[in-house]
């Protein structure tokens, strides 16, 4: 009988082993096709909202020959946004002090795929109602921006580059005591820990950054891209 009992155990072991291991983690790719499986009430509820959105936000704005990617330390999208803000304010104008643009990568919320860009794409890029602010920054405070950029790993900027821990501003002369920084009201008020802007002279505008991006894109028709890195540690 012992022999037969052993047969039973061996048989049980052989067949049971395949079920011994269960992974504690897995990524499961599961395709759910919306149409058949979706609650029709949910579709019906959503429909008027989608219709409104498509009517109001599907308008064509511009095209881009290649994707604009949001990526630190520097990317074509970050460059394009900063250039758009700078050129919207400085094109065909002369200033007695250097003007740079400094935004925050965290304030840009979406990349662009190649092809047509709609109004909705620009709302996804800049969903916040942030407004343009001019900040009068003493040259002595540039070192604080440099520390910030070293730590953050790169932000959108124009008319300057960050090289080896230093902010290089081509138009800055030794005779300058101040520069103008174009930024958002959120950052000018110390948002994203940009505390170097606090307590400085500011000139508020009522211009939404999003509107600057849309207008610039419309004027360009096909976005003018610059993928050259503006940041190296």
């Amino acid at each position, binding site marked *: 009988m012992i022999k*037969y*009992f052993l*047969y*039973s*155990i*061996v*048989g*049980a*072991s*052989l*067949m*049971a082993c395949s*079920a011994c291991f*269960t*992974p*504690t*983690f*897995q*990524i*499961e*790719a*599961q*395709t*759910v*096709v*919306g149409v058949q*499986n*979706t*609650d029709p*009430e*949910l*579709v019906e*509820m*959503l429909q008027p*909202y*989608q219709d*409104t*959105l498509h009517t*109001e*936000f599907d308008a064509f704005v511009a095209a881009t020959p290649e*994707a604009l*990617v949001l990526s630190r330390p520097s990317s074509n999208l970050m460059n394009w946004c900063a250039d758009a803000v700078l050129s919207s304010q400085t094109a065909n104008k002369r200033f007695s002090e250097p003007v740079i643009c400094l935004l925050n990568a965290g304030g840009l*919320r*979406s*990349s662009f*795929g*190649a*092809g047509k860009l709609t*109004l*909705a794409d620009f*709302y*996804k890029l800049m*969903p*916040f109602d942030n407004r343009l602010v001019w900040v009068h920054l003493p040259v002595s405070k540039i070192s604080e921006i440099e520390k910030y950029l070293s730590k953050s790993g790169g932000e959108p900027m124009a008319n300057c580059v960050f090289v080896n821990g230093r902010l290089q501003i081509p138009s800055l002369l030794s005779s300058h005591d101040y520069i103008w920084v174009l930024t958002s009201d*959120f950052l000018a*008020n*110390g*948002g*994203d*820990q940009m505390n170097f802007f606090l307590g400085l002279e500011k000139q508020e505008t009522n211009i939404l950054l999003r509107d600057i991006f849309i207008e610039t894109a419309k004027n360009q028709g096909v976005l003018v891209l610059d993928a050259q890195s503006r940041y190296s540690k």
Partner: protein
Amino acid sequence: MKLTRRKLFQKFGLLSFGLLLPKWLGAQTNRKQHPELVILHTNDTHSQIDPLPANHSKYPNQGGILARAAMIAQYREQHPHVLLLDAGDFFQGTPYFNRFHGVLEMKLMSELGYDVATLGNHDFDIGVDGFMNAQQHAQFKFVNANYDFGQTPMAAVIQPYHIIEKGRYKIGIFGLGIDLNGLVPQSNFEGIAIKDPFESAAAVIEELKDAKCNLIICLSHLGYQYEDKSKPSDVLLAEQVSGIDVILGGHTHTFMQAPTKVTQQDGHTVWIHQVGWAGVRLGAIEVTEHKMNFLQKIIH
């Protein structure tokens, strides 16, 4: 040895029993492994109602509220005890939010049957009044334990924790939010004080233990981990505060390849999980008596 019919019957009868036994044992094992509870979770959905576009560089055609709803419904059909949770930043990111000011997100989360959500920093993007207006359409609970809502109207609709019973589980769910200073304009959270998240967590966990909860979940919008290791994060929370079983995180948009396991000094295990952003993943934790299976479902 000559086999008699009786001996032959005995021998093959036992062998057959031996072969059938594992199937029976397997059936018992499978029965035991059938999840007693399924915890579904999202974070940082950011008003992504439609799927991401076909030319999206990383997640083309993924996400979308209808596909998410279908996946959740499928779970509910298969399992009697399903929890649906969100770790914050359900607002902001698409024109749906700019146009409808969070009302649609609240309606849809209610339709999908969310049980509990915590708040992310972007859920303050339309200020206290904006949030209060949108939340009128929410048929689920909001939790946060480290914001003191003071005299603001949010105090009436956001509790430190919420307890839900599912099967033999009494689940205590509490929320933690990130320091809003520097992330959200001051005017958007006027009257709200930010408290130490770890001290707040420790206090609320005591209450949940007193209430005999046998599963404690933290919905965290602190962020997974930072270069500055001293900044409050999910990993630091798991290391420093005892009593949490699962931290479902958000804020850092982290696509985790596996859940993080943190073993505390007393041997207690804390699991941390987060599912990226934009609703392109649905986290699913299948809970049995001694095990949790963590899955990330690609919503497509």
